[in-house]
């Protein structure tokens, strides 16, 4: 009975969406009621309705600053990925290069980015560039490690076949290593996409008057809690949207991977 099966699947999908939405609404309701009943002042914890009112009040303001943060995070993510995939390509092909460069990458990784942020501001000024750089730095290491592992974890039989038809190193890389590494890269993207947003926000804390990070700092100095919470809500929305986008891209790209087929069943 294909029809009944379809209906069953549709109903399941509805539950999949409805259940988490209901959970969020329940939390908001409890929060609202608690704030009102306890009479908690708005400068300590604003009610969800206060936050919503602030968002509705100045939608352009939050959209503009949100767009700045989003652009910085995206640019940083792209830059970090490009740099790490390039470095991983070299390291995956040469053990000598790996031995030389990997400790350097590890040093970058173990240095807290927050500690370097003020330095970047001094070097690169008050514009977007230092924020992009911080986001890129945060993205770099997890993608590097995954890319190296991915480029190396190639089916040995497929590699033998490529060699038996005299494929060049470049052809083996493009036709075999790069696609084989995609599952590893997407696993890293899931971690680094939210990290890139964190990097951009941290950068904005230190300098400049653009982006949700600076909105948060200003609101904090003015004890303007509704604005502060509204900025957090926008940041959370950006995080959700980016995570969903990554998951969508992963599903489209890795349709052939075991993890997808397990899910389908």
């Amino acid at each position, binding site marked *: 009975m294909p029809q009944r099966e379809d209906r069953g699947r549709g109903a399941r999908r509805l539950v999949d969406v409805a259940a988490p939405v209901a959970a969020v609404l329940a939390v908001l309701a409890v929060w609202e009621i608690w704030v009102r009943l306890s009479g908690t002042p708005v400068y300590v914890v604003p009610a969800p309705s206060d936050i919503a009112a602030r968002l509705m009040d100045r939608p352009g303001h939050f959209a503009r600053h949100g767009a700045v943060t989003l652009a910085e995070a995206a640019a940083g993510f792209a830059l970090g990925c490009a740099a790490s995939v390039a470095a991983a390509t070299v390291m995956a092909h040469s053990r000598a290069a790996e031995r030389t460069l990997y400790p350097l990458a590890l040093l970058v990784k173990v240095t807290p980015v927050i500690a370097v942020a003020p330095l970047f501001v001094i070097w690169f000024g008050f514009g977007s560039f230092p924020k992009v750089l911080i986001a890129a730095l945060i993205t770099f290491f997890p993608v590097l490690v995954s890319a190296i592992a991915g480029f190396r974890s190639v089916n040995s*039989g*497929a590699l*033998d*076949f490529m*060699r*038996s*038809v005299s494929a060049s190193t470049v052809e083996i890389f493009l036709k075999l290593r790069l696609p084989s590494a995609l599952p590893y890269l997407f696993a890293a993207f899931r971690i680094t996409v939210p990290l890139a947003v964190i990097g951009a926000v941290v950068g904005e804390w230190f300098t400049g008057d653009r982006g949700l990070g600076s909105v948060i700092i200003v609101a904090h100095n003015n004890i303007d809690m509704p604005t502060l919470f509204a900025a957090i809500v926008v940041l959370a929305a950006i995080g959700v949207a980016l995570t969903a986008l990554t998951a969508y891209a992963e599903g489209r790209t890795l349709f*052939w*991977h075991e993890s997808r*087929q397990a899910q389908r069943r």
Partner: protein
Amino acid sequence: MKAPPHIAIRGLSHSYRPGEGRGPAVLDGVGLSVAAGEFVSIIGPSGCGKTTLLKSVGGVITPSAGKITIAGKPPREAQRGKQIGFVFQDPCLLPWRTVRDNIALPLHVNRAGRSEDASAAVERMIDAVGLSAFRSFYPHELSGGMKQRVALARAVVFRPAVLLMDEPLGALDELTRAAMRYEVLRVWEASPTTALMVTHSIAEAVSMSDRVIVLSPSPGRILDDIPVDLPRPRDDSLEHSAQFMAVVRRVKDSLSAGVAYAAARG
């Protein structure tokens, strides 16, 4: 006057990990000649170096000692001339490519295929291995037997002079395996190449080959070279003939003699 051998192997020895002192030898002075168009099987117990032998001929690994030529040229040169088609025990298909694109893969390497000829060759191969209805399927949507047919098509689509098969049917279930023997033979007959196959199955070796080479337990040496004078084209009715049984028995005796000899040698 005899024609020069298509594949000539002389004094082939190999041991892995040569850097760390000499590891145990897996092959010891193997010499073998295969004539053009011949189908030769290599059979022997596990670990006797069959796969190493095949990979050396295919130029995938470089043996410690010995000389291999394919039509008078070393294996690496034969690779560059697209002379070598390789089938492995696992199909080793690229999971992100469809049946068609997997078969076309060797034609995309080194820009070997001129586009129109190449795609026609790919379409012909898809039909030849009976996957016409599955050309745009992905490997995860295929059965084990279908995947191995794709691997076979991928190995011969560029018309190599030599077809090397490393237990090509080893990963299949018994029923599929028995039927696939004759499918492989039909593909081989349609594009007469010189075939060298490694197998564990005596029935497979005898039913498919012109000659069966028996290797000793490790380190592998050639114990016997058994001709199979059965008519071609072959099909599964062959497996009930007395002639077939006789050759099977000879191979079996030869294999057990090798095992007994190795046991006595300690």
